[in-house]
Structures are given as C-alpha cells and as structure tokens.
C-alpha cells in the first residue's frame, strides 16, 4: 500500500469550474425490499471539476450512479445542463442519459460495463450502438466499428491491441481502458465513474487517472465514486461524503483531511456540512 | 453418401432385399395400434392367417399420428406393395390424395369410402351385428339399464350405438340405454383410463351390461366391468377370452376375413364397394367356451331367430349413417 500512495500523487492544476452541469435535488430511491437507499440526496457538479463521492461501500453511492446512469428509478429532481432528467418514466434509461451527455463507467465493469463474451470491437460501441453514425438502417457497420476500435485501442494503450479478442481475454486494467475509451472519447458533458481502478494493475491506474484529469481540464464535469479514500483525495476538486443514503457533508479537496472524511464516512457529523 | 455406403457395404445385404419387396401386400393399422384387442387386431389376425396359409410376407406399419397417413401410403406404394390395405375411416382422405398417383396399385379401405378406379371399399353392417348383441344385453340385464361406450364420436360409431339400442328395445321396450362417447379425436380409440371412468359412471347410473365399441379404449371398459362384477360386450374381435365368464359376448366384425380375402386376391383384387353383412357372416356375435355359461338357450334362440329375420329382410335395422339420425336413441 506504501507504493500505491506515492503513485496517487496525481499531477494537476487547480480547477477552474464553470457553469453547473449536474444539479441533484432531494433524490430518493426505495429498493424492491422496501429499504430506502437514497434519502434525499442533493449535490451539484460544475463544468471543469471533479466531485469525489467518498463513503463506505453500500451507503448509497452505487444507487446514485445507477439513477444518474439510467439504470434505476428514483424520485426527486435532477437537471442536466439545466434540463430535467426523467427519473421514473419511459426515458429513465441509459440511452436517454447518453443522449443528454452523460457517460458512465460503471462500478462493476465485468457485469455491467462490458459483455465479457463480446469482442473488444463490439464492446467499443456498447451503449452507443444506436448511434446513427455506426449503422445503415437496422444494420450495424461492423467493419467501420472494427477500424475505429482498433485505433481507439492504440490510443488508450490497450494490450494486446487486438479488437477481435473477447473482453474476457483482457486483464482488468485493459478491460477498464476499453470501457474508459468508449465513455470519454465521445466527449460527454458529465462522466460518472465508479471504482475506476478497482482490480486494475499499477501501470493502468496511472493512465486512468491521467485520463480523468485531462477530461476535467477539457471542461467536463466528473462524478467520481470510489471506496479508495486516497484516490478520492488525489483526484477530486471537491469531496462529498455519503452515509446511509444521505450526504453528510462536503469539503474542498485541498482542505480535506483523511481523518475528518473518515469520521463523516462513519456517520459522524463534523459540523462543516455544506 | 457413396463413401458411407462403401463403408457400410458389408452389412447391406438384408437391407437391399427389404427395399426390393415387390408385389407384397401391405397393411396400415390405424391409430389405436395393432394390439388394441379389437378392430386393428382383427385386421392383424386376418393378415397373419393369410401369412400362415400362403407363406407369403406382408409389410405393415402402425399410424402414430394424423400427419403420417399420406407418407405411409406413399412409402408402401413406392416400395411396390400391392394391394395396400388400410383400416379405419380416417384413411379415406389420404387415399383419395395418393391413389391417383399410383394407378397400378390397389388400395383397400376398410370402413372408409373413396370412389376411385383403384380403390376397394369394404364396409360392414355394424348396425345389424350390434342389434343382435343389443338383444342379448337386454335379456341379460337385471336392472333394465344397459350401457354403450363408443370411441371417437363419428357417424360410424353412432351406427353401432343405434343398432344396439334397437336390439335392446326389441327385447324390452322399457329398457334404459345410456350411451357415452369417449371423445372427438382419434385419441378416443386408445384411452383406457377414460373408458374405465365412463364404465364406472354408467354402473353408477344402474347399467349392468355395457357394450364397448371403442377400439383400445374398450380394454379399459371390459377390465372395469369385470372388476366391478357386471357384464360387458366386446367388439370387432372376439374379446370373450379377455375376462372369461365376464364378457357376455362380442360383436364380431370380421375385419380379419376382409383382410384375409383381399390379401388372398392380391393384385387381382377388383375395385368397388363390398358390404359384408349378416348373410355374408361379415358381422355376428361370438359364442365360445368363455361365455357359454352366460348365454342361455333362450337368449341364443331369440338372437338366432332375429338374425334369420334380418337376413330375410323381415326385420329392418335402421342404419344411422343413412340419414344421420336414430329413432330410439338421442346423442
């Protein structure tokens, strides 16, 4: 873990946040068993900043990502670039979210972010497969997708850079690069990214972090969810802490201390809540 | 394909001879199966008798489903079988389709009807035979209630029922006749469970003699009747031996004779309609050591007298299929 800390000093300039991209108000989710998973979450993210969401796993951060990613129904208000998102109607799905400019690197990339039996090239358009640019009528333009995937894999240093291999044939880090490449190359306004480096080798961690920072510097909004507090602290511009479906507080990254965040993550209010 | 044949060539001898079986007769049994102890089994017995007497060989197959009928006909016709004998009315339509394609092959339908130059139609006067066993049922009944259980509900089986009912009424005008059909599909020919349940139901309504004209379903009827200690009447084949002393008699329909005769005639068979009636001994009732104790002399005298009168035309037994109605029984 010592070596990892050193690596986590991510080089980055101070953020220059722009207009609000994502505004979340009073978001609530009740799961099928009747348990309230999100109990009125409110937060916002502006262009050009990384909001880190810290918390012990299972406190609602997964649900938040899934609601924003269109995989889960919720109540409350979410505005994307000022326009309200459908949280429980027919447009509460991944396609509508992508159309609204939201990209999503899911926490569980092997079960959700990728089809493990699909080749890398097929995975390179997963979720964007309805894009008219890659289709002729109902048919997908497979050779074009293949060429595009091949180039993309070169750019993201996916090894081996063979787009015909199935996703399951790649290491965890390279799988994550395939997902990340797919999600950020289209220039989304908001990137949801969960556990970006879980199960990823050291070399790939660094690369992935650089990509996140570069995206921020390009003026995009990023919601980062990670159970690694170090990662949150290294990448975020602001840090919010979630506990039991509620936001316990929010601090600027440069003012944050691991101890204070740790207390909030344990449900102890520090009085500095935003 | 050729490679396969070369590879398997050694064992091909018997197979080749099978395909070349020329001018042998063929017999197609209807749904219900060759061993239904009744209609189809009668045909089987006839064919076996021909085989034993002539030393000839015949091809056979049993229908498993409606959809196979045409294939079976074509297959035998392609293989050169002649004549092709079929049992059951349901073969009429397939024969009508296939026969024109094989004008040199003779097709025989037992119970069916097809008007083509190379089809022989064999029918029976089942109403007359049923009339005789109906008389016996009425005489044997103590409760004055007798039962009839048919197989598939088609005019042919109603013809059985109607003849039976007339026989019953001739002896005892006050007798009650309970008639049930097993079903409306060919499955009704082979549903002994249902036959058994219908028998119990009729016994419950007071029947103490039950006549089953239901192919394999009848096996269940006769079984249950024997179990419950009442009398039953078999059909088509002589079924007296199935439960000795418990089957009053069997209405014989000499399908065996019909099959034997057409096989014997072989390729010389002439087309046309042949009706086997009482006079031709095409139908009748069975008397053997198994039911000797059940059939009284009085019963035998009465029935034989009626038989003679029917042959002489003094008694007219109404044929249900002539006008699709029965004067003494409503269905």
């Amino acid at each position, binding site marked *: 873990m010592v070596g990892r800390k050193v690596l986590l000093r991510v080089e980055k300039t101070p953020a220059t946040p722009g207009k609000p991209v994502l505004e979340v108000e009073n978001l609530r989710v009740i799961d099928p068993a009747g348990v309230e998973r999100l109990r009125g979450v409110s937060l916002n993210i502006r262009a050009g900043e990384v909001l880190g969401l810290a918390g012990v796993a299972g406190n609602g951060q997964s649900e938040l990502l899934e609601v924003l990613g*269109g*995989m889960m129904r919720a109540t409350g208000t979410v505005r994307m670039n000022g326009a309200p998102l459908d949280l429980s109607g027919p447009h509460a*799905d*991944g*396609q509508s*979210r*992508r159309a609204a400019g939201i990209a*999503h690197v*899911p926490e*569980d990339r092997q*079960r*959700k*972010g*990728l*089809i*493990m*039996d*699909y080749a890398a090239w*097929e995975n390179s358009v*997963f*979720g964007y*497969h*309805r894009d008219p640019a890659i*289709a002729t009528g*109902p*048919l*997908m333009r497979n050779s074009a997708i293949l060429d595009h995937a091949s180039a993309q894999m070169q750019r993201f240093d996916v090894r081996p850079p063979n787009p015909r291999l199935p996703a399951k*044939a790649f290491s965890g880090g390279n799988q994550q690069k395939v997902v990340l490449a797919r999600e950020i190359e289209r220039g989304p306004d908001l990137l949801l990214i969960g556990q970006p480096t879980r199960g990823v080798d050291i070399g790939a961690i660094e690369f992935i972090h650089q990509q996140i920072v570069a995206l921020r510097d390009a003026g995009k909004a990023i919601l980062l969810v990670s159970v690694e507090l170090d990662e949150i602290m290294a990448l975020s511009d602001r840090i919010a802490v979630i506990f039991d479906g509620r936001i316990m507080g929010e601090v600027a990254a440069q003012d944050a201390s691991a101890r204070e965040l740790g207390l909030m993550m344990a449900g102890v209010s520090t009085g500095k809540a935003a | *394909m050729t490679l*396969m*044949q070369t590879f*398997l060539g050694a*064992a*091909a001898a*018997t*197979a080749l001879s*099978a*395909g070349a079986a020329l001018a042998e007769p063929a017999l197609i049994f209807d749904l219900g199966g060759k061993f239904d102890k009744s209609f189809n089994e009668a045909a089987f017995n006839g064919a076996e008798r021909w085989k034993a007497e002539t030393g000839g060989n015949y*091809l056979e*197959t049993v229908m498993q*489903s*409606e*959809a*196979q009928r*045409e*294939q079976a006909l*074509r*297959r*035998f016709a*392609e293989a050169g079988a002649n004549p092709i004998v079929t049992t059951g009315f*349901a073969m*009429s*339509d397939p024969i009508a389709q296939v026969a024109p*394609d094989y004008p040199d092959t003779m097709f025989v339908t037992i119970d069916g009807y097809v008007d083509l130059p190379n089809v022989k139609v064999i029918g029976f006067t089942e109403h007359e035979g049923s009339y005789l066993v109906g008389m016996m049922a009425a005489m044997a009944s103590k409760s004055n209630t007798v039962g009839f259980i048919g197989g598939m509900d*088609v*005019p*042919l089986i109603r013809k059985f029922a109607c003849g039976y009912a007339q026989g019953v009424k001739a002896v005892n005008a006050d007798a009650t006749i309970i008639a049930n059909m097993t079903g*409306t*599909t*060919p499955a009704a020919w082979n549903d002994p469970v249902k036959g058994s349940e219908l028998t119990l139901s009729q016994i419950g309504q007071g029947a103490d003699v039950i006549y089953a004209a239901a192919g394999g379903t009848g096996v269940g009827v006769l079984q249950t009747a024997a179990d419950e200690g009442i009398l039953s009447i078999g059909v088509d084949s002589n079924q007296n031996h199935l439960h000795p002393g418990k089957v009053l008699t069997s209405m014989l329909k000499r399908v065996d004779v019909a099959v034997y005769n057409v096989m014997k005639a072989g390729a010389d068979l002439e087309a046309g309609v042949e009706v086997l009636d009482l006079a031709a001994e095409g139908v009748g009732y069975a008397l053997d050591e198994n039911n000797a104790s059940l059939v009284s002399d009085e019963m035998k005298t009465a029935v034989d007298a009626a038989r003679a009168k029917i042959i002489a035309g003094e008694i007219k037994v109404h044929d249900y299929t002539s006008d699709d109605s029965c004067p003494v029984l409503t269905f």
Partner: protein
Amino acid sequence: MERMPKWADVVLIPLISLLLAAVISGLVILAIGEDPINALNLMVKGALGSTYGWGYTLYYATNFMFTGLAVAVAFHARLFNIGGEGQAMLGGLGVALVCLYLPWPHWSLALIASTVGAALFGAAWALMPAVLQAKRGSHIVITTIMFNFIAAAFLNWLLVGPLKPRGGMDPSTARFPEATNLPSLHDLLAPLGIAFSKAAPANISFLIGILACVLVWVLIWRTRLGYEIRAFGHSEPAARYAGISPTKITVITMLISGGLAGMMAINNVMGEAERLVLNATEGAGFIGIAVALMGRSHPFGVFLAAILFGFLYQGGAELALWTSIPRELIIVIQALVILFTGALDNMVRIPLERIFMALRRRGA
C-alpha cells in the same frame, strides 16, 4: 484466457456429443436384438438413397429449420422457448385461415400471405408468455409449456367443431383450394432437368427455410437488434446499463421466435398436408430444441442440425417400416442429443478443456 480454441467449442463438442448419442443409441438397438450397423445402413439408404428419401429428409429438415431457428433466436436472449410446438400449431391455424377463407389467384401470393399469417399467429401465441416473463418474471419455460397444452386443446376444439367441413369424419379442415398448393421440389427442379421424386413432400418452403437461416444470421450478427438480443442474453445488468430495455427485448425476441416456429406451418400444413389436421406438428417444436442445441444456436449450425434430424426422422420412419425397431427410436436419439449437447455439456467440455490446456502447456 480462452480455455480451448473456438473450433473445438463449435465443432468438436457437438460432434463428440453426437457420437455419444449415436453410441448409446447403437447399444439400445443392440439391446433390443437388432443390428445397429444394419440399422444405420437402412437409415442412410432410406433417407438419402433416393430422391424420394431426400424429398422426405429435406421436408422434415425444413420443419426443423424453422423450429430450430425459433429456439436458437430465443437462446441468444437466454430465453428457453419450449413452446415451439404450440406456436407451430397456431401457425398452422394461420395458414389454414389464409388458405381457406381468402381467394388466391396464384400460389406465390398465397405463400406470401400464408407466411405472414403463420408468423403472426405463431408470434401471437408467444406474446403472452413473453409479456408474463418480462413484466411478471413468470418463468417462460413453464408458461410456454402451459401454452403448448392450451394450443393443443384449442386446435382440438376448432378441428372437431368450427373448422371441420360438413360431413367430415376425421378432425381436420377442408382441403385447401388448388391455387394454394405449393410447388414441390419435383416441380422446381424439373425445368433444370433434374428428376426429383414426385411423391416426396419437400417443397418450396425448403428454400424459404434456407432464406430464414440467412435472415436470422443477419438479424443476430449484423443488426442493432441482434446486438441487443445477444447482449441481453449475456448479461441483463449490462443490457440495462447500455439502455437496452429487458422488457422490450424479451417481448421482441419471443415474437420473432414464435413467428419462426409458426412459419413451419407453410411447410407441413400448406406444402404437405394441404389441410390442417390434428397434431400436424408431430413434435417438431420439441425437436427444434435438439436442433438449436446441436447447432450451437448459429443459423448455419441449425441448418446442418436440421438436415441431420431430417435424416434421422426419415431414416427412423424407414427403420420402422422394414425392421421391428419402432419409430420411437428417433425420440430416444433426440433425447440423447438434448441430454449430451444441452444438460451434460460440461461432462464433455470439462475433460476436453483439460486436454487443450495440457496440450498448450506442452506446446508452450
């Protein structure tokens, strides 16, 4: 890492499974006192030894292509459509209604309408199970089984009642008018100078079956819908992540599957019987399961497996004619194929994977 090469998965495993099924069937034949080699020889001769035999083999194969594709398409979405039998029965009803109650000037128009009718009726019969699975989570296997029985009862009622012509004794519809009779392979091949048996029922539906194989291949591997169906089949959470509606995909896939099963009716009802009889499907819906498993749910595999089962079916019918081996032998073979390629897949796969791993280690 891939444990074994793709060809082993696609070709070797089905072949080994088939071989196992064949060996056990051979033992069964031995056990009932017949010679398995002779039996095989008879089957080959009867099914492939003449254009008559081929005509029946291809006729049955056409049925199995449709039902096999139906099961295969559903398999891609990880749905087990065991209701092909009922859907094909309803397809038959669709064909019968089109042929009997509409006037047709030419068979080609009747064929198009019948195909649509068959597909619509088959799809309609798959709709309820699909909706129940998608909306209520009722297991589609159970609902499709129930719908098979309901279909059988429904057709039974129609064929002894409303659809039976006046004076008819057996439960079937009237004959379809002459104009709806499809050209047989004999008619189609005669202009090319090829003499094909006139008696065999193989007909133009065989070509439609092949076309269906091609179209299903395009659907599964070339279209967005196919991409979504496969994705949903591989991982439902991933499908939801990608914005693929599980409800929609389940329903659409089952409609396609039911439609394909229903289309079988243009072969057996319109092409062969030329009227609708009871139990016209003869279990083809269930054979579709074996065909799809054997063909690894790939249209080309389904095509090959359908031909194989067509051969087994026709060969088995021949066996029943010439030997004392009952036709039920085919059912046993079918059961063994389903068992080995489906349920006991791992029994074949795991040792094979070990062998390939060992070979690779030695090679490395």
